[in-house]
């Protein structure tokens, strides 16, 4: 997916950009309000991440103009302000959701997914591989035309594996992506989820191969 990140703190912006690129998305970065206007007018984005405190203006004016322009690209606000009144006014101005800094990247992703799901029209995010159709945004897995209900973590595990088929993922890598830092869970919980996913993918042409000592790999016929 294509993201527009409007954030003046370059360190933070770099971190976000590299993380998103790692996940396979395209990110445009604007550090100032002026650049933000320029980007949003010329480009077509799936989602805009907006920092409220910008050096040359208040991000709210971007929101206003964005909504006036009748573009329906969803906007998630990144803010350090935690006053409820601020949040409410942002939502009133047209933001779809907000995330307070510092934020958990997984939470940001989850919110992006939720916002995109609400906007629907997510045909382009569906991944077809073999006899499965997997939409990470909508969170749907269709195997041979049969819809299979997956839990959230299972979905994210599948998304991770499907984004890089044939790549070997060590257990700890998967663990870090799926479990938040405060969860008191051992790495072996991954095995449980791999097992569950295998069961769901049984009728499909996808297979998860365990490479002892190395990790897991998604293969398809």
């Amino acid at each position: 997916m294509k993201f527009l990140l409007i954030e003046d703190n370059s360190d933070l912006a770099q971190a976000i950009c590299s993380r998103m690129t790692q996940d396979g998305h395209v990110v445009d970065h604007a550090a100032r309000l002026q650049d933000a206007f320029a980007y949003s007018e010329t480009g077509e984005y799936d989602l805009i991440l907006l920092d409220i405190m910008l050096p040359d203006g208040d991000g709210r004016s971007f929101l206003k103009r964005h909504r006036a322009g009748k573009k329906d690209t969803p906007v998630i606000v990144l803010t350090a302000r935690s006053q409820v009144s601020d949040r409410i006014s942002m939502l009133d101005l047209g933001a779809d959701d907000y995330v307070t800094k510092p934020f958990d990247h997984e939470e940001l992703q989850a919110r992006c997914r939720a916002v995109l799901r609400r906007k629907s029209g997510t045909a382009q995010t569906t991944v077809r591989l073999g006899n499965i159709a997997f939409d990470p945004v909508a969170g749907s897995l269709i195997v041979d035309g049969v819809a299979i209900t997956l839990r959230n973590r299972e979905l994210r595990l599948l998304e991770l594996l499907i984004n890089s088929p044939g790549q070997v993922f060590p257990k700890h890598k998967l663990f870090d992506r799926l479990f938040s830092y405060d969860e008191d869970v051992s790495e072996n919980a991954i095995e449980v989820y791999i097992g569950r996913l295998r069961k769901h993918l049984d009728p499909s042409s996808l297979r998860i191969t365990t490479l002892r000592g190395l990790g897991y790999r998604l293969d398809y016929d």
Partner: protein
Amino acid sequence: MTETVNVSGSLRRRLTLTLIGGAAVLAVVLFAVVRLYAAQIAQQGQDSILSASVTSMLDAAVLRDGAVVVDFPYAALSMLSTTSDDRVFYAILQDQTLLSGYKHLSPPNGSFPATGTFLAETPDGALIRVASDSRTLVGADTRTVITVSVAQTQEALQVTLNDISRRVALFGAGFFCLSALLSFWASASTITPIRRLTSSIARRGPQDLSPVASPVPSEMVSLVESLNRLMGRLDKALSQSEEFIAEAAHRVRTPLATVRSHAEAMLHRVDRDENRKALRAMVRAIDESSRAAGQLLDHAMITFRTDHLEREELNLTDLLQELVQRLTPVAEMKDISLLVENTEPVLVSADAILLQNAIRNLIDNALKYSPMESEITIRVSASPTPTIEIWDQGAGFPPDQIANLSSRFSRGDNAKGIIGSGLGLAIAQDVAEAHGGALKLSNLPGGGACVTFSL
């Protein structure tokens, strides 16, 4: 936090009493003055008649063949008839010898006021007013002084005076009553601008610190000016604090965000276990400080706001649905299902922002302490009072610490390894109590905790 104001006296009562007191004094003075004046006039009236009588008697005195003849007219005594049938006395003296008349009118020791009017007493104790005058009769070889005194009791005079007194007293009383009424009205109308100012200030919303715009009388100008200055300073201080808080939030959180993002990114690149552990610890620490900062800021905001609740009519069920929607992505990350059990509206008059803050903190706590793939159920009910119950399937509250859990900064024993602070519960309790309600913690018999937030 409003302390009772130190009351000393009452402006209205002071004004009313002063006016009434003044009116009373004036009425009494009026009565006294008029009475005095009336007494003077009445006495003058009696005196002039008495003098006329004396004159008519004196005029009739003649020397005839060396003897004094006073053939005074009927009118001399007739003119002394009054409506009260006052008694009449007279004395005709020739060179201090009583020729005819009443003995008691001649002075005892010979000191004789030749002219004038004075008060005296009859032998039987009645008060009389006496008028006297003298005339010298010159005969062929004699020269003699005739003195005539005429006296009258003062019963008619007294009747007149009493009548006048009664009338004046009535007028005085009437005047006083009117003045009393006027003073009530005057003091009420004088106090009205103060009352108007009071109600216009009282009607303001809790956040309204704008200067007083309504017109005030000139005496209140310096008071209102000081008030406006005070409010201006307060407003400035408040917005400065708000600015400070927002600025602090921004300044603290932005670098934290940077650090966290980098740590997260790094975590995905390192393989060595001890590096991963260190980075995870770093991120945990950042999250804890961020959460703590957030809660401290929340708490500061709530402490200020609980004094000036902005109540509005809202639907608790709607409020919880919105909160749940907002927190669902976070719940989903742990595969925790978060749902509101009921759909019927529960109306309540409360401060929306405080409520959202409190409940969000409670749900946050529940999310933190619930294991993955568990359920958090929220139930909203209207009776006996509007209540929100949050049930989770976590480890529950340590039983001996349920009472203490809500005091600031305490953490339960089973919170080890889990980021959080008792501040969340303290915030929720403060909000509940500000609305006249309460926060109750309990453990479920089958495991898990229940938090009851009632208004």
